[in-house]
Every structure is written in structure tokens, then in C-alpha cells.
């Protein structure tokens, strides 16, 4: 027996178009209602707006425009926005599934393709649902450093975001009257949402006039919202510890435990992944500084000059972050000695292999940046970028170039 046909209470209450086949699914659960959907949709709209804004901000942080350098204050800026981006994105996964549950009967209108308009609507809904699920799933997989898909995560995540947001706006436009009805109606009183649209359903309030509110024999609609909210809250509270240090101890669902990283900070890209080993850094390692006045610094000179300390958080695009104490040389001092100044654009080059082996820094972040030799009181270990790494406030972790070999004043 098909589960859908047995789904919701006895079939054939006399409603619905006459011609549909007997096996066509019927949904009689009184829980579903546009009043419930509109409330879930409102939460989803807010979540998607936050994800969009923090996502675009992250994109800018990775490649700031030269006329608008990324600020250095607050130092925890990226920590907060990206922590929110990942937390909200994670919470949106179950939220969107609850929303889809609430409108599932709409997929079973009879006849399925009644008009060109309906076909177009179904197509746009397929794009909306597919793109939002794709976006959320791959985003979460990225947090887990898990790439079972063959495309570059960042660019697809960026462009699919426009497909999601555009589809959502179109959807809001199409559904505006329903949204209005749903939000203006008290939750227990809203029409039951079934596979029969309200304007064809003789049992809807809109057609039958004043009716007693539908009876929900099991859990109530309010109960559904409360339980869903509770489940989503548990996910957020038990995973946000990867960005909100005081909650790390209850981070039962936190992918990262930042304080468990070596020297108190997790590593995003290991020395092994960048093909860096102690052997590639010989005793004769020097830092090459290119600019109007080229010069070199030996390891001994660098360690001698590394006296500046700063508290700068490390914040990664995957949403984890933690505060750390750094010691090193001020990058600006090094740049000025090469003939540059606080207005220079500076390129920091790594001898590591692969992506993010160079980054550019300019504006306020340049003035606040360190070339760090020490992390939390210890000499940087190899995974953290020994012998020398860049660290600047409000700057994504991957741009804080590790295993620095060369500074170019542009």
C-alpha cells in the first residue's frame, strides 16, 4: 500500500475535483495550515537574509576593494559575522525541512499540470527547493571539510546564493496573498492545508464562512512550532561553541573544539597539506623583502626583533574562531624599512604549495598586522606557520598567510 494514500485519515470526505483517481494522495492532517507555513516562512526569510548579508560580507573580506580596505576594528568582526553565518546556515537546514513538510500536500494538486502558469510555478519551486537544499548541504559539508562534490565550493556557493535569493523573492511575490492570510490568522484557526487549494476546497473558511477551528487530536500547531524551535535551538546552542568560547564545553554538536588545537588554536590547512616540512625550512631560511629598498632578514634577526605582542582572534570561514596572543614583528615596521608606508599595498608570499599561498594586505589591517613568531607564549609550530606567519585583526584565517618567505611592497 502506498504510504501517501493511507496518510491522513479516511479518504473521500467529498471534497476536491471529481475527476482525480482514487489512488491520488489525500492529506487530511489538521496540523498543516497556511497560518503555520507563513510563520515558518517568516523565520526562514529572516535566516536567509542573515545568511546572504554575512555571506556577501565574507566574500568582501576575502577580496576587499582597493578603494574600501577591510577595517581592522573590531578585531572580532569576522569572528562574529562568520560565526553567525555558519550557525544560521546550520539552523536553516532543519528549518527549511519543517517548512517543506508544512506545504508538502501542495505537490499533489489535481490535475498536476493544470495550466502553463502552474507548470512555471512548479519549475520555479523546483529551482527554489533544489538550490536552497544544495546551498545548505554543501555549506555544512564545507564546515566538516568534506568535499564529495566535484566543484569549487566557494564560487558555486556564491553564485547559487543568487539563485536562492532570487527564487525566494519570486516565491514571496507569488505567495504574498497567502503570506498575508497566514500571518493575519491565529495559528489554531487557520484553514487546513491539503492537496486541494483553499479556493477550491468547500471546507475552507474562505468558502464555508465561519467555522470552528480545526481539531488537532495529537500535537497542536503551536506544539509543532515549539518542538521545531526547541530542536533547532539545541543544534545552535550545542554547535555555536566553536565560535563562542564559553559554550565550547557544551558543544556536543560542534564540529570544531578550538581550544583543543595545537598551542590552543586549530589549524585550517596543515603543513602536510601545504607540503611544508621541517626539511624545507633550512637553517639558512631568510625573509626576502621586496620594495623600493630590498633587503633580507635572517631567522636570528627576526627572532631578536619579535617583541610586539597583540591579542588577535583567529576566525575561519568555516565558522570556528578563538582568541589568541601573538608575538612578532610589526609588519608596518618591516614595510617602512623597505621604503613603503601605511598606505602601501603589501603582498605576503608563502613557500607552502596550493591555494592561499599569497595574500594582499593594505589599509587599517596593514597597520595592525604582525609577522608572528610566537603563539600563546610558544614558538609557532609547523602547522601554525613556522617560522613566520601573518596575523591581522578582523581578517579571515586563510588570509593570514603561513610559512612566509617573502614580503612584497607593491
Amino acid at each position, binding site marked *: 500500500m502506498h504510504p501517501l494514500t493511507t496518510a491522513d485519515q479516511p479518504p473521500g470526505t467529498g471534497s476536491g475535483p471529481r475527476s482525480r483517481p482514487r489512488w491520488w494522495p489525500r492529506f487530511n492532517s489538521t496540523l498543516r495550515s497556511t497560518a503555520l507555513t507563513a510563520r515558518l516562512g517568516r523565520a526562514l526569510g529572516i535566516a536567509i537574509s542573515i545568511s546572504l548579508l554575512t555571506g556577501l560580507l565574507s566574500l568582501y573580506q576575502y577580496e576587499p576593494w582597493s578603494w574600501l580596505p577591510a577595517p581592522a576594528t573590531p578585531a572580532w568582526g569576522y569572528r562574529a559575522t562568520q560565526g553567525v553565518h555558519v550557525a544560521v546556515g546550520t539552523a536553516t537546514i532543519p528549518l527549511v525541512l519543517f517548512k517543506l513538510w508544512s506545504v508538502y500536500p501542495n505537490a499533489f494538486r489535481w490535475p498536476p499540470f493544470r495550466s502553463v502558469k502552474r507548470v512555471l510555478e512548479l519549475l520555479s519551486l523546483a529551482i527554489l527547493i533544489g538550490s536552497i537544499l544544495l546551498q545548505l548541504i554543501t555549506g555544512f559539508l564545507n564546515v566538516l571539510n568534506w568535499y564529495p562534490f566535484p566543484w569549487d565550493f566557494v564560487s558555486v556557493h556564491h553564485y547559487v546564493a543568487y539563485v536562492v535569493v532570487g527564487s525566494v*523573492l519570486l516565491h514571496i511575490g*507569488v505567495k504574498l496573498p497567502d503570506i498575508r492570510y497566514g500571518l493575519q490568522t491565529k495559528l489554531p484557526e487557520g484553514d487546513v492545508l491539503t492537496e486541494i487549494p483553499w479556493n477550491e476546497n468547500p471546507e475552507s473558511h474562505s468558502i464555508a464562512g465561519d467555522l470552528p477551528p480545526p481539531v488537532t487530536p*495529537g500535537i497542536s500547531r503551536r506544539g509543532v512550532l515549539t518542538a521545531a524551535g526547541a530542536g533547532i535551538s*539545541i543544534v545552535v546552542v550545542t554547535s555555536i561553541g566553536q565560535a563562542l568560547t564559553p559554550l565550547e564545553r557544551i558543544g556536543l554538536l560542534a564540529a570544531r573544539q578550538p581550544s583543543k*588545537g595545537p598551542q590552543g588554536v586549530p589549524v585550517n590547512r596543515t603543513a602536510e597539506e601545504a607540503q611544508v616540512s621541517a626539511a624545507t625550512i633550512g637553517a639558512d631560511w631568510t625573509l626576502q623583502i621586496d620594495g623600493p629598498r630590498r633587503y633580507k632578514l635572517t631567522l636570528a634577526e627576526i627572532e631578536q626583533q619579535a617583541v610586539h605582542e597583540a591579542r588577535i582572534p583567529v576566525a575561519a570561514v568555516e565558522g570556528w574562531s578563538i582568541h589568541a596572543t601573538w608575538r612578532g614583528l610589526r609588519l608596518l615596521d618591516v614595510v617602512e624599512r623597505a621604503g613603503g608606508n601605511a598606505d602601501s599595498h603589501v603582498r605576503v608570499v608563502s613557500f607552502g604549495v596550493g591555494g592561499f599561498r599569497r595574500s594582499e594586505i593594505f589599509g587599517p589591517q596593514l597597520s595592525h598586522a604582525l609577522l608572528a613568531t610566537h603563539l600563546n607564549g610558544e614558538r609557532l609550530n609547523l602547522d601554525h606557520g613556522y617560522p613566520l606567519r601573518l596575523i591581522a585583526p578582523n581578517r579571515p584565517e586563510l588570509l593570514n598567510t603561513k610559512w612566509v618567505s617573502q614580503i612584497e611592497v607593491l
Partner: protein
Amino acid sequence: MGYWRLVLAIVGVLIVFYGIVNLLVHIPIQTLAWVAVWLTAAVLVHHGLVSPVVVAVSTLLRRLIPDRGRRYVQAALITAVPVTLIAIPMIYRQGSQPPSKALLLQNFTANLGLLLGIIAALCLVGYAIRVARDRSPTRGR
């Protein structure tokens, strides 16, 4: 309202096209085909597998469990969905990363068990209170 609906729809369609054009320009077409496969699979798996299972489970609950108890079972299951959903990929991937990343080091099976246990216990307590109240001579609500 009609005016706003039109504006929303037009702006929405334009943004969708902006995204699609960017995908076509920046992503190789073979790769993009895989994006389309994932996108389609997501819809099919949700509508063809996940939702029917949910409907089947709720039908079973309705047949097997009386209304008073069912409320609490439903509340427990709904609360458990987000937690389980997030935990499963982490269970699958736990221990897969270099230790220095401090990533997926936890025993997420145990963590999920703990969270589900707490949810089940709370709902059981709620049900017990309900039963006790229904039985009390004053039949207080």
C-alpha cells in the same frame, strides 16, 4: 499589493538569472552538470523519499498511539529531527581529519545519544505530569 507582487517577482527573476549567468560564465559546463544533478537529486530525495517516510511515520503513530500520549511522542520526534540531522554526517566523518585541525574529534554517536536521551526524558516527564494530573481527583488542567 498587486504592484509589489510584480516588483518582487521581476526582481527575483532577474537575480536568479544573474546567478545562473555567473554559474555559466565561471563554472565549466561539465562541473555545472554535476551541480544540476545534485540540485535535482535534492528535490527528488526530499519529495520522493524523506517526505513519504515522514507521512508514513505520522500515519503509524496515529494508528498505534492514543492521542494523549501521541502529543508527547510527536513533540519528541520533531525536536529530535534537527539534532539527528546535524549529528549524522558528523558521526560518519568523525576521526577523519588530522588531529591538529581540532575537527570532528568528538564521539558524536555518544553525544547524539545523550541529546536524544535528554529529549526523550523531558517528553516522558511531560507525559507523566499530564497523566498524573488527569488522574488527580480535582482533575486540574
